[in-house]
């Protein structure tokens, strides 16, 4: 059983009532408990990240909140009340895996989805925002991975949602397409919308999220602002050196170190002292790198596993 690690006042923005509250949510599939009694609240205007390895229960949690799946038990409150039919009008959803009606162009599909909502965004604005100008008259089945994700994002925004759910929006994208997508998500965030995002990319979470909840085995094991979580669970920096840089066995050094895949990882909160120690032992520092701790280290410290194990 994990104990939830929580930082105080994670974002500094939660002075107003939360937009969304999840209370003791449980979702079971037969004997399997996919989501195991989780609770959290999301303030207005923030980007909230649900992080965790595959199978941690992120997507299930998201789909229960979205009202796509029914919960086994627990409550979901939107603006302090149980969700009503209006909820669907106020949220935008980008599914991790989805198909759309076949044989339609990007523009036609946007028009169809626009027609399903009461309050909608101007499609030209949306096409510009999501960088779809070049492809808007192309059949959506023909879009590349990055184009398709931007198109799905545009569909999620077609109803001017107050709350946007993005389920692993950049999975499978190349770095350029991913950064492009992050730029768009940041634009959406800047417009004041609340975003709930799932991802297993720590870099993405750190780049986009004001607050994250780390999930593992259906439970939340840590929650807070990324920097606060890192401060709380990781100390100092990691110095990485190839094993061949050491003339003597590194274990002889009075340092907190581990050997991983032929590299020596030294955890230190005093980089100056660490470097002096290494130089005194005639360690070759030409291939040295110094890594700041990230959410991956938080997960590693909390579970003993890597996020993508």
């Amino acid at each position, binding site marked *: 059983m994990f104990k939830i690690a929580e930082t105080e006042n994670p974002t500094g923005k939660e002075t107003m009532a939360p937009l969304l509250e999840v209370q003791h949510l449980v979702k079971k599939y037969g004997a399997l408990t996919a989501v195991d009694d989780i609770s959290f609240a999301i303030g207005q205007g923030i980007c909230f990240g649900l992080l965790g390895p595959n199978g941690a229960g992120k997507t299930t949690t998201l789909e229960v909140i979205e009202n*796509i799946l029914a919960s086994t038990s627990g409550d979901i409150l939107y603006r302090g009340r149980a969700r009503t039919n209006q909820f*669907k009008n106020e949220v935008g*959803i980008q*599914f991790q895996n*989805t*198909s*759309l009606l076949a044989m339609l162009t990007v523009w036609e599909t946007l028009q169809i*989805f626009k027609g399903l*909502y009461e309050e909608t965004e101007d499609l030209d604005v949306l096409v510009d925002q999501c960088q779809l100008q070049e492809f808007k008259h192309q059949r959506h089945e023909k879009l590349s991975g990055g184009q398709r994700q931007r198109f799905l994002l545009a*569909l999620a925004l077609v109803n001017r949602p107050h709350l946007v759910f993005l389920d692993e929006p950049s999975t499978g994208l190349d770095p350029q397409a991913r950064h492009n997508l992050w730029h768009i998500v940041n634009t959406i965030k800047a417009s004041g919308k609340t975003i709930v995002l799932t991802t297993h990319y720590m870099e993405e979470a750190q780049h986009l999220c004001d607050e994250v909840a780390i999930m593992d085995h259906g439970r939340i094991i840590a929650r807070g602002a990324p920097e606060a979580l890192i401060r709380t669970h990781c100390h100092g920096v990691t110095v990485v050196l190839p094993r061949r840089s050491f003339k003597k066995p590194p274990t002889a050094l009075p340092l907190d170190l581990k050997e991983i895949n032929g590299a020596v990882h030294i955890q230190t909160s005093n980089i100056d002292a660490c470097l002096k120690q290494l130089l005194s032992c005639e360690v070759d520092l030409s291939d040295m790198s110094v890594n700041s701790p990230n959410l991956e280290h938080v997960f590693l410290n909390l579970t003993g596993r890597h996020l993508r194990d």
Partner: protein
Amino acid sequence: MRFKRIWIMFKARNWEFFRDRASFGWNFLFPFLLVAGFGILFGGKEYTAYKIGVFPATRNPLPVAELKLPEAFKKTRFLQFVGFATREEALAKLRHHKVDLVVRAGSPPYRYWINDSSPQGQLAEKIFQASLSGPPDPALLQREQIHSTEIRYIDWLFPGILAMNMMFSALWGVGYIVVRYRKNGALRRLKATPLTAFEYLSAQMLSRLFLLMFTLLVVWFGCDLIFHFNVAGSLVSIFVMFFLGSLSLTALGLVLAARGTSEEFTTGILNFISWPMMFLSEVWFSLEGAPGWVKQFAQIFPLTHLLRGVRKIMNDGAGLLDVMPEILVLVMMTGLFLGLGAVLFSWDR
């Protein structure tokens, strides 16, 4: 091209097929059921080339040996004798090509009727005449012809073909497509919008109705240019009947689309429903002479009532009031199917 990839995909596809127990089982069950159905309908009997209507006779199957007809005629192979209580009833069937020849049972002269537009009838008449020794004798035979409006076989068959086309289009165009969208997640995406199941199903139904009626008009008037159909009743009434039939068949498609994510299993179910409906609703051939329970069973299909109504209007000149029983049945079936479809519908299961 790499055969390794082809082989891997071949194996993967086979695994998928064999592991989908429902569709796997269905692939065996369906042909069995089809063969069994035909066996029950036609098995244990000789193949009959001609149907001879006999009146007055109330018992079916007819005790042929007891009929007062020429012995040689009764013993002729490949003839099926179908009894009717009255002459009018028998002649109505003759007019609709449901029997090939009508004979009054009794003492000579034997009075018989044929439909001039029926090639089967002409041949059945030759068999009847040949069963009496010598050339046709007016003292023994009394030939009658139907002098009412001619109903050609094509006039009888055409509504059947149109209705069958409607049935396939309605069942597959709705049932199969919705299941495919459920399987690939498109319905799930729609579920996330404010669109309700009722709205979605209504849109599916209306779209299909529009396509069916559009197709009907194009095919009808296109074929009419070539075949010059004899339409005894009102065209508007015929289209009203077809509209009600389309509604009922599309609603049935919605019931089939209500659940399921396996396209192959749905294909099996669609075949299971559409094929018996096609054979038992008299699209291609009459059920005259089939066991009573088969005729009764055929009543469960909307196509039966659609075709009966359309043929009454087209071939007999009936009005909408005359086909009110068929209309009522179709309306009730539509209501039932829509209710079932709405209750059972799931976006993702």
